[in-house]
């Protein structure tokens, strides 16, 4: 057992497994119930009315979002708190994919508790899992191309886990939501390219001239015009198809069998959503399912990833997928995206109103 899993007694594990089996977990949730989360993004999605446009969590990023647990105490660091920043820059494309934009994901865990090695491990794990599951589908990389062979957008997605708290179990799920929210409020300025060399300045257009240094095209001078007007800036294309991750935790049933009459028990393993660390400690396996819900009635599984060592029979995998597809709907409801002015805990906000 590694450091990151909490130490539990055998009795507690039995208690948790039985609870999941009886559809009443330790905190009273059903098997497929989510805890509440809040995501705070930029003020308004449309920039027409300036009154509701307010500070995003990070003003120097092209897009940012902050996530925390709905029920949290303002002064404690036991609840989940994440921050995601998206920065965009114009770069030369790689030689391999000259007509594709680029995207980079970086995860940093800033949780104060626990040894350093453990923190780095969870950080690397999260980064690897998210990259595997999400990177291909977050945005339409081809549409991030400005001028093939010359200029493309590169998006830097930085995810900070400020406090992981009691829910570090479902970091992947939360991370996928906060990344998606940040990307959705990202604005890329409109860029037009021309090969003209004229130097006069247009009205309202900031003109930037990037001389092409690509040795392959010594004569191909391309000029970019960056439109500074936010009204024509658009989110990265394809972001509405960004998948979310639903982690399904698989609990063994053998322990349940040991303690209850055999007839009363179905032999299939117990599957739960939005697991707590304690529940993860009892799990044999965990499957992260990336789901694209852009087509509301017809969700699409875009990727699967299994973590933990436990083996998983193939027929369980179909159950897992079914649960994950159902869970994707309730996940949408559990992660409330709210354009907000502040990043206070919800409880604190409630008090301020009183």
């Amino acid at each position, binding site marked *: 057992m590694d450091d990151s899993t909490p*130490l539990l007694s055998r009795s507690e594990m039995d208690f948790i497994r*039985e609870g999941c089996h009886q559809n009443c977990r*330790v905190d009273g949730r059903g098997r497929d119930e989510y805890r509440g989360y809040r995501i705070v993004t930029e003020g308004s999605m449309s920039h027409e009315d300036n009154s509701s446009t307010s500070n995003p969590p990070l003003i120097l990023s092209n897009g940012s979002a902050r996530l925390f647990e709905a029920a949290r105490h303002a002064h404690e660091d036991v609840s989940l708190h994440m921050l995601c920043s998206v920065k965009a820059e114009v770069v030369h494309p790689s030689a391999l994919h000259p007509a594709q934009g680029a995207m980079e994901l970086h995860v940093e865990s800033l949780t104060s508790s626990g040894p350093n090695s453990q923190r780095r491990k969870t950080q690397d794990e999260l980064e690897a899992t998210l990259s595997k599951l999400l990177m291909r589908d977050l945005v339409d990389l081809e549409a991030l191309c400005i001028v093939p062979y010359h200029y493309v957008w590169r998006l830097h997605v930085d995810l900070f886990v400020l406090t992981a708290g009691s829910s570090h179990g479902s970091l992947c799920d939360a991370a996928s939501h906060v990344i998606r929210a940040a990307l959705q409020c990202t604005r890329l300025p409109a860029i037009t390219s021309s090969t003209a060399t004229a130097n006069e300045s247009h009205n309202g257009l900031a003109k930037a001239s990037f001389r092409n240094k690509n040795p392959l095209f010594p004569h191909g001078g391309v000029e970019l015009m960056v439109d500074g007007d936010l009204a024509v800036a658009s989110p990265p294309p394809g972001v509405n198809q960004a998948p979310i991750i639903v982690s399904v935790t698989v609990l063994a049933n053998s322990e349940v069998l040991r303690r209850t009459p055999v007839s009363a028990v179905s032999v299939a393993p117990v599957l739960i959503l939005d697991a707590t660390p304690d529940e993860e400690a009892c799990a044999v396996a965990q499957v992260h399912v990336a789901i694209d819900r852009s087509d509301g009635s017809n969700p699409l599984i875009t990727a699967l990833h299994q973590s933990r060592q436990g083996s998983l029979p193939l027929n369980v995998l179909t159950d897992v997928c079914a649960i994950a597809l159902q869970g994707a709907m309730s996940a949408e409801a559990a992660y409330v995206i709210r354009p907000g002015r502040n990043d206070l805990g919800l*409880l604190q906000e409630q008090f301020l109103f009183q």
Partner: protein
Amino acid sequence: MSHDTISPSSSSSSVKHLVIPGQILAVSSLSDPNGQDSFLRGHGTYVEKTETEDRLVASVLGIVQRVNKLVSVESVSDGVYVGQVGDLVVGRITSVTSQRWKVRLIPHARDAALPLSGVHLPGGVQRMRTAQDSRDMRSYLQEGDLVSAEVHKTQQDGSLLLHTRSVRYGKLENGCIVTVPPKLIPRRKNHFTTILNQQFQVLWGCNGVIWMQRAMPDLEATGGPELVELQERRRVEHASMPLSPEERRNLARLRNAIECLRLVFCRVTQEAVEQVYETSLALNLNVSQMLVPVNVIRLTEPSRKAEG
């Protein structure tokens, strides 16, 4: 050089002063020993002596409390548990060594020790501990197990020695824990209570760990060795009998009631917990709905009013 001080005479009780370590709270000049500006040093402060005056300096970040001349600083950090002899605590075994168990009372702090001589041997016999006993330690309590114990001794360096030499203490099974800041659990005469119509047994650990389980049948024995055996049998019976879905839901409701109080930083007492529990029933709230922020606010309203 002028210091921003809060002199004992001028600080009014209605204003809460937040001070940082190193901040001077009061100054009394030595030239006038009977002066009005003398003070008594309370906890969270220390005295700095200079040639002309004594200065009372805060040693922790917190709020100044003053009772007549006694000035103390109540720390705002709530994670600190300072053990006192006789405290009931709930902890988790982290390691087993040759003569003692290490028990974690609060995370990221030094573990307390439970010596082999501090536990009842199975069967309740009183005798010297043998080498065989120390080999069998793991069969009695192993890593990860939860125990209730009493603080037996506080040592010079602040670490604690525990004992479980009573039928009420020992391994905890078939229930769940909630951890709250230790500050929220007031010291009471009785930390082992049966609440809500004898439904649950709750251990209010002074270290902030609350253990709850469904109530075992009453133990009305007269004492003697058979009591110990009876108790042991009951314990095993309780541990091996799974909870019914109904019992489990009620236990989860109790857990969430405590969680509600933790979220709003209210004292977690039997009365407050019972109140939240009953209110949640009266409002017809689903167990998992209790932790929705709006409901947390609604449920804990009386408790928050009571604390001001």
